[in-house]
Structure formats: structure tokens, C-alpha cells
């Protein structure tokens, strides 16, 4: 039950239990309280759409795995078979990312460095790290045991060849923002210079360009990176767009690239960041088509005490403090790994990446539209329901319309849904 409903439920039942009668039922009170919820969908509701999406568990028709006794694989590799000679293998689909945790604090690089090394040594967990400034690389120290994804700036690419060589030599993967003026040629150039995975970052400017992903994949880009935080500020059809809509669209673009060429996907990764902040959301995002989750703010929260006391005030930490915070990050990531394993096993899979969008159900029409997710109990998405009713209507009334008109009506049916209701 929801936190805000608890009072009503408890009050009503206790009234019945102590007096033997009560004045009104729980549902009446709840629906009176929540009546506004149906007509207005706020931005915050859109932000919390993950909560109304659930995964299907394993029961009789599919036996569950046991995460405590059986091997559940979360391993993810980044890099395409055909283009990359040095693939990166992550033991869980997480890359630490986020200016929030890295750049506000003096010693935060040191902390993350110790934590990721420790995870690798003690628990054989390989987790990636993104860094966005080239001089940050030096702060990380020498004995690094985890892969680095460096976000290259466009200046280095165009102006400073020596620096570029240096950057390429000390990172395992690179991320470069895809811009119209440089994109394809620069990626082609990088591909030839660099053996590890080359990831292209898609931004708001070129997201709607249908051609960009096929062009990038043609020149050998290994993955698409997207920070959905940027996108969700913009407005899509009649409202705010949620991370799940972006994942769906990019996954569709990647799949249709391979379908058109009648090839199998040779390992293009979709790396997604933004509004994926719990193990459940990681599993849901992966079900929708993401391969790797760039994860940051949850770590910030996990270490908020330290964040609050030292990091924001930019006080240098003693070595024992650094050690303690690193230990917390390790614990947090270990618990997260166990949670993801538990979810995967409970769904009846031994590999996280076997989860697909057919394992998702939603109890929210908006989520069904944005993520193309089936509605629970109906096993159809809202768009499928609309289309089948539309077909029935046209057939019965004998009206013929062309594809353009049909598309226009469908779009406006979806877009105006909230207003018409």
C-alpha cells in the first residue's frame, strides 16, 4: 500500500474492529482523496512511471532459479565482434557515471578508485567508470584494475593530436558526443586509431535524426550512450518523456539497422543514464532494451553522510575516512548485485540479459504508451488496443483512409488522451 493511504486504511479497519460498525468504506475514502489523480498527470507522476511497471515472476509455467545456490550471470561485454579487438567485460551491467559524485568533491576520485579496485580484488566484480576530464585520469593513480571510459571533448579531437594519443593509450573505452558537424568522419578516424570500444553519445540535437544511428554503426561504433536526463526535460507527445520511451526508441533504431541488413546484432551496447536508480529499475531498463546502466546518484545517496559532512565543503579527507567511504561504496554495489541476481532468478532466468520487454507489465496507460509495455490482465499495449478498435471502427463504417491520415489520427488520439479524458 502507498504511504499516504496507510492512515485511511488503518483508521477505517480499527473503527470496525473496536466498534463493530464504521461510517464509510476504505475505497470510498481513498477514491475521494485521490480523485484528482485520474484527471491530472503531473510531471512528477511521469518521473515515477517506473513504479507502475512490474516484471513477471516465475511460478509453475516457468520454474524460478535460486540466487543463493545457482549461478546467475550478470556479465556484459561492450564491443562489437566485428569491429573491436579489445572488448570490455563487466561482471555487472553498471558503469559509474555522474558529475554529481565525481566533480563536487576533492577526494571523490580517490574513493571511487579504491572502491572499484577493492571490488575487483576481493569480489572479482568488474565495474566501469566514466571520467569526463582528461586530467582526472591522473588523479586515479597507477594500479588501476577496472576499465575506464573516457569522455573525450571535441577540442582534443580536432586540435591536439598528441593529447588525443595520450588519452587513447590510457583508457579502455572512449565516449564521444555525436555532433552534426563532425560526427561520422571523426568516429571513423577514432575507430582506426583505437582498439577498444568507441561509444557515441546521442544528445537531444540529433536524437530525432533517423539516419544517425545507421551511419554510426556503419563506421564501427560499438555502443550508443544516452543521458536521458537531458531528454526528459523536453516535451514529447502531450507530455514529458520518460527514460523508458528513450530506451525503446534507441533499441528500436538499433534493431531495425540489423533487420534491414538481415544480420544478427554483433554486440552493439546501449548505455543509458538518468532516472534509473534502483536494482528494480535496472532490471526494467534492461528488459526494455538497455545493455548497461550508467549509475551514479544512488551512490551519492548511499554515502550521503560523508557527502554532507566533507565532500560538499571540500575538506580533504584523511586516509581512514577515504577507506571507510570506499568500503561503503563496495557494500552498496555488492548489495545491488545480489538484488539484481535475486530479481533475475525470481523471473526464472539465469542470465540478466535474457529478460525482454515481454516480461514487463504495467498498471499505467502512460507507461504503456511511453515504453510500449503490455497492460497487466489484458496482455495488450494501449496502442494495440487503440489500433484494433480503430480497425474495427473503419471496417464497420466502411471508411477508407490512407496511412498518413491513419497515423495522424493515432498520434492525436495518443497525444490528446489526457485532455479528452
Amino acid at each position, binding site marked *: 500500500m502507498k504511504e499516504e493511504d496507510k492512515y485511511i486504511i488503518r483508521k477505517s479497519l480499527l473503527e470496525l474492529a473496536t466498534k463493530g460498525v464504521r461510517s464509510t468504506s476504505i475505497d470510498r475514502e481513498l477514491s475521494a482523496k485521490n480523485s484528482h489523480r485520474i484527471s491530472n498527470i503531473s510531471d512528477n507522476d511521469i518521473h515515477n512511471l517506473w513504479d507502475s511497471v*512490474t516484471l513477471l515472476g516465475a511460478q509453475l509455467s516457468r520454474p524460478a532459479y535460486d540466487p543463493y545456490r545457482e549461478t546467475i550471470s550478470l556479465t556484459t561485454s561492450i564491443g562489437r565482434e566485428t569491429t573491436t579487438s579489445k572488448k570490455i567485460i563487466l561482471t555487472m551491467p553498471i558503469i559509474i557515471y555522474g558529475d554529481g559524485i565525481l566533480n563536487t568533491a576533492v577526494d571523490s576520485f580517490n574513493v571511487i578508485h579504491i572502491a572499484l579496485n577493492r571490488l575487483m580484488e576481493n569480489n572479482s566484480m568488474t565495474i566501469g567508470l566514466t571520467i569526463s576530464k582528461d586530467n582526472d585520469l591522473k588523479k586515479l593513480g597507477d594500479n588501476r584494475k577496472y576499465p575506464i571510459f573516457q569522455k573525450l571533448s571535441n577540442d582534443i579531437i580536432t586540435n591536439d593530436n598528441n593529447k588525443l594519443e595520450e588519452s587513447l593509450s590510457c583508457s579502455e573505452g572512449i565516449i564521444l558526443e555525436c555532433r552534426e558537424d563532425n560526427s561520422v568522419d571523426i568516429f571513423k578516424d577514432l575507430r582506426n586509431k583505437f582498439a577498444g570500444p568507441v561509444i557515441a553519445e546521442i544528445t537531444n540535437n540529433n536524437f530525432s535524426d533517423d539516419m544517425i544511428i545507421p551511419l554510426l554503426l556503419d563506421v564501427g561504433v560499438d555502443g550508443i550512450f544516452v543521458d536521458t536526463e537531458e531528454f526528459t526535460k523536453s516535451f514529447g507527445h502531450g507530455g514529458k518523456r520518460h527514460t523508458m520511451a528513450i530506451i525503446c526508441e534507441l533499441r528500436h533504431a538499433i534493431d531495425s539497422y540489423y533487420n534491414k541488413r538481415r544480420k544478427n546484432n554483433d554486440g552493439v551496447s546501449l548505455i543509458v543514464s538518468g532516472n534509473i536508480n534502483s536494482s528494480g529499475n535496472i532490471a526494467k531498463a534492461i528488459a526494455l532494451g538497455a545493455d548497461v546502466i550508467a549509475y551514479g546518484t544512488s551512490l551519492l545517496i548511499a554515502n550521503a553522510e560523508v557527502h554532507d559532512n566533507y565532500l560538499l565543503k571540500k575538506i580533504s579527507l584523511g586516509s581512514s575516512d577515504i577507506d571507510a567511504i570506499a568500503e561503503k561504496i563496495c557494500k552498496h554495489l555488492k548489495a545491488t548485485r545480489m538484488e539484481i541476481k535475486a530479481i533475475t532468478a525470481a523471473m526464472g532466468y539465469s542470465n540478466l540479459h535474457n529478460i525482454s520487454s515481454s516480461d514487463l507489465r504495467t498498471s499505467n496507460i502512460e507507461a504503456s504508451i511511453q515504453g510500449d509495455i503490455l497492460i497487466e490482465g489484458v496482455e495488450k499495449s494501449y496502442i494495440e488496443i487503440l489500433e484494433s478498435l480503430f480497425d474495427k471502427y473503419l471496417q464497420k*463504417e466502411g471508411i477508407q*483512409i490512407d496511412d498518413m491520415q491513419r497515423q495522424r489520427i493515432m498520434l492525436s488520439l495518443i497525444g490528446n488522451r489526457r485532455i479528452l479524458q
Partner: protein
Amino acid sequence: MPYSRDVLDLKRRLLNEVTSGRTGYFDTVKIIREARKAEDGKVPYAGMGARAGNEYFESLEILGADINANYLGNNSRNDINTSFKIGGRYSDNVIDTDAPFFVSGMSYGSLKLPAKIALHLALNRLAEEEGIRIMMNTGEGGALPWELYSSAEMCSHNAMLQNEAIIDYTDRLLKAHNLESFGKEQLFRRLYPLVTQYASGRFWRDPSYLLNADAIEIKIGQGAKIGHGGLLPAEKVTDLVAENRGIPSYRAAHSPSRHLDILGPEDLVAKVLELREITDWKKPIIVKIGASRVYDDVEIILKSYADAISIDGYVGGTGAAPLEVRDGIGINTIPALELAKDAITDYYSIHGRKYDHGGSNDNSSCKLLVHGGVWDSERIAKCIALGADGVGIGTGFMLTMGCTLVQDCYTNTCPAGLTGSFEKLDILSTVDRIVNYVKGTLQELRNIARSLGKKSIYEIKRDNLVVTDELASIVTELSFREGRGYHNLIYQKITDELLQMSSSSSTPQPSTTSQLQNQSDRLKEKSILKGGDPFY
């Protein structure tokens, strides 16, 4: 697994900090969860039901129902039939109870002894003084001695009282909880039907657990942790709990995520037949699943010689489940009920039979029980109207006993003293409240049926329900109050769009436009829209 106080302090500071910069999507619960993970490096657990809403119930309305409709001044108990039967499809015995709801599985171990005693005494008092027999499920943690060794058809309780081992265990149980004042004569009688759970952990001492119950429930899964095994943390496995379950004490009691001998349909058939042989084909057998792939699972159960199917929506409660599994896996109760009903209807139509959903007196058909988010009479009536035969209530009884919804059931810190803590539970007043709750709920159910002019609560059917939002209409295929279903709304929108398109196009097609106009008018008339889809 208690967590340190600093976590609680820091989360308050954090809440301000994190939410001020961002759009506020980190709520308190998420922050505590992340902080706990960093604090102890373990998967955070949680008690009771999922945090999600179960808005389908709110969006359904029983037209004309009044829970206080006592206007005839007729308070007689017998004017409205509320009896609920289970068994008889393959079993010889049929359990006959007086209420369409029952106490769903809450085991000794997850509940402390005083709470279990309160439930036992309350159900006895209801049966004895009020003539209301309601069924109780033991949960998967084994049954208490007085539940197993004291039913009416069992040997006389005097004989049982002489059984030293049982008496010794009972004495120790009562002493450990300072409850010696409870006379054993008072405890060793059971006047209500008992269902014991046959779960993957197999927590029981001897076959009397199966033989002395009135029905057996094979628990494949439960709503709160579908596909995930149960876990009773080590600190709750006291010597007495361990002895009752037949496991080592102070070690976490982990039930596997699946029955090691039930992996598919054939295994289930074999298991049901095995239990039938053990119980001499007498006891009804129920199979319980958590709601996920409900249609497929129900089809399998229907073919497995079970007497009843029990479905638990993911909002259903639990003693301890990993938070993410509890909140992220499963579907809601009402959609699950719809899918189960579809599966049952399809099964019977293949066999050339029509299935009458909801409390049919025909015991030869499979009964459908639902759990999850059902707490009061109105929700019970809604489930029955949608096709359920019986409804399991867990959290409703917990709240009645004084649960404060802190949801820390897995720690030994229950503020109400229900799931384990030093807080003392006042058993006598708790019994009173349970009795009131059951009587009140049953009276409200009768009032609902009476206000609709029905003679039995099972006469409440789908026609008595309306929905108040589009999603509920899609899931249940029910209409809104004014008689329009979701299809009508969508047809209306399509017509409006087509009209707008043809009026804006440069070469309007006269025939189509007028046709559409007619159609639009037609759709707007309520009379035509009555009964859902106008085309069919």
C-alpha cells in the same frame, strides 16, 4: 537486520539536499533503502505488501451498495447467504464455512505466539458464540500443537493432553511467552477449519501436519515474493520456532525459491496425487501461486486434480521479502483475477461445460480464491462480483490486531508486538477486536447484498459494478457509470478526429461527413451506448 540510527538521521538531511536540486523523485523510502545497502552490504528486506497502489479497487464501484444498509431493521443472520464451500472436485470432504473470506497464511515464526493465540481464540469464539466458522491457513511455518491435535473429529483432547511430548512442548511455548495463565483446556480445542501449507521449505515435524488439517495448500509462490524463496532471519528462529519447524535454531530458515520436486505440470500432478493418497482422498487440495503468468499457471493447476486455485496479487503482504523483489515483480490482484477467470472459462468450455463464476454451489468445479490488497467488505464484494469464490485476508487481520504499518516485520522491533519484539500484546482485547472485525465485515457484506436486493452475496455479479477510470475499464471490460465502456470513449474520439479531418480537408467527401456526423450523434446518445460496444 536492524540498521543504525545514523541512517535515519542522515536520510533527513539528505532528503532536503537531494530533493532541492532535482525534481524530487527520490522519496524517503528510496533514500533509506540506498543508505541501508551501504551500511550493511546486504539486500534490504521489507515486510507487508508492495508500496504500489492497488487503484483498481478504488476505481471499481458497486452501484447502489451501502455497507450500512440496515433499513429493513432486519438484523437476522440468516436472511442473506454468505456460506462458502471448498473441496468436492476430487476430494471426499467439503469444507463448509460461514464467510466468503478466511485468514490467509501467517505462520508461527513470522507472527509471535500471542498473535497466533489471539487468532486461534477469536476464531473459536466466533464459531462457538456467533456460529460463524471461518477458515484459517497456517502459513508455511508449521502449525501449533493446539491447531493440529484438537479438532472435533480428532481423538478426544483428554487423550491428546496425555501425550507427553506435545504437552511438554506446549508448556515450554507458553512459558517462553509468559502465558502460563492460559489453560491448556482453553487452547486445545479447534472449532474452525484449518488449512496447512505445503511449501518448498517443508517446515513441519511429522505427517500429522498433513493428516490433521482440514485441507492442504500447496504453495508454489506468494504475491510478495514471486519466484523468490521465503526467509526467516536467524534471530527469529528461536529454539521453539525451530522445534516447531523441525530445523536448527538461530540459523536463517531459507525456503527454496521453487519446490525441488515440482518443476512443471507433470510434477504438480504427481504431487497432488501423492498428497491425495496420504490423506486418503479426503482432504481438499488448494494450489497457491503468486500472480504473474496467471493464465498459463491456472491452466496447469486446473489439470492437476486440485480442488481450488489460490492467487496472490503482488500487493499481498509478507513477513520478509527483498524490497526490490516485493515491489518489482508480479501483477495486481484484479488483473490476475481476470486472467484466472479467463483461463477457467476456457478450460471448462473446452470440456463442454459452462462455468458459473463466484460461489457456485456446484462443488465439482474448481474454486478460485484471491488474496492481495483485500481488507474490507467492499473489496471482498468486488472480488466476488468479478468471479472469485473466496477471499484471503492477511493484512486486514494484522491491522485489526493492532499493526501500525511500520513494515519492519522482519526485524524484532514490531511496535505492536505482533511479529516479534518486547512489546506485549494484550490477547483478550485483540480477540475482541478480531471478533468484531469478522462480525462487522460479515454484516457489511450482508448489508451490501441486501441493498442490492440479493439473497446471497454470490448473486452480486459484474452488472452491479461500474468503473471510474479508463484503465480499470480496459482491464475489467466494465462500463463507466453512464453506461459507456472504454471502447465507447475511444470510438467517440476517433469519430471526432475523422470529422475534424474531413472538415479541414479541401475536398470534403459529403457522404462520409454526414455519415460520421450521424455516427457521432449516435455515439453521444446514452441509450445506444448502454451495454458496451455499439457495434456488437
